């Protein structure tokens, strides 16, 4: 039994299926991204494009990057990164709204 068999022994059977499923989802997401760009959605265009991108990113992080099965320490680390990034955007939008 190798190193990673011990670390992730449980999920080999169905993990490949999950990878193909995520890939399919990413490709559908790509098609959707391009498709909505050519539809007139007014001010909603960018929020919708970002919502699709965030959904794609979510599945890459959870499944491809194995965060779904990560330890609490890794979770805290990732959340801190997202908090930092979000703070930047929150300050930016507050500044914009206050002008």
């Amino acid at each position, binding site marked *: *039994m190798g*190193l*990673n068999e011990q670390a992730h022994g449980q999920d*080999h059977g169905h993990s490949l299926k999950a990878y193909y499923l995520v890939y399919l989802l990413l490709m559908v997401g790509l098609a959707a991204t*391009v498709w909505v760009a050519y539809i007139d*959605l007014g001010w909603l265009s*960018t929020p919708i494009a970002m919502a699709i991108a965030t959904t794609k990113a979510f599945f890459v992080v959870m499944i491809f990057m194995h965060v779904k099965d990560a330890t609490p320490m890794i979770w805290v680390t990732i959340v801190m990164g997202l908090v930092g*990034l979000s703070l930047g955007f929150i300050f930016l939008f507050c500044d914009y709204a206050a002008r």
Partner: protein
Amino acid sequence: MSSDANPYLAHHFDDIVQQHESVSLGMWIFLLTEIMFFGGIFFAYTIYRFLYPDMFHAMSHHLDVTMGTINTGVLLTSSLTMALAVNAAQRGMKKRLVTMLGVTCAAGVIFLVIKYFEYAHKFHVGSVPGRLWTFETEFGNQAQLFYSLYFGATGLHGLHVLIGVVIIGVLTILAWKDKLPQGRAQRVEMVGLYWHFVDLVWIFVFPLFYLIGRT
């Protein structure tokens, strides 16, 4: 097999699970710094897009959606093959590991080649900010802002792809020469995290630069 007999366990770790978490934590902290690094570009993008929305929409039309879409597909596919490579490494399937790493590396090269043609076109029409700028638009020099952000974001992303291609290329050779046994699968896994991160950045760069104001 008990973990203390594992030849791949470094002496300063209690067991293989602790070693795995430490290495992963280090990689994630590095990726955190990368989030803030690319975050800065997205902050700048947001500020300037708010200031000059019409210019951003008009300039986005000069980017090649076909090439951008193909490149997105290439990167997403390479993320799948990278995930499969990590899986193959963990299961000790050498042939599959070499193939998947090779395909991932090749996809990175294809991405860079397509990017080269996009850049070459911009040099040709003079939409390169700075001394080479000869691009005539109704927005005058303002348009250089969009292209500065475009070259900044895609250039730094491209640099990350290039670094990834080199590292994955080295891994492919190591795997081929039997130097990446199952016990070293974590090396492939950590490079995989980096490669997926590069893919993540592109997932946001693509709609924000190529696909705005298309209606």
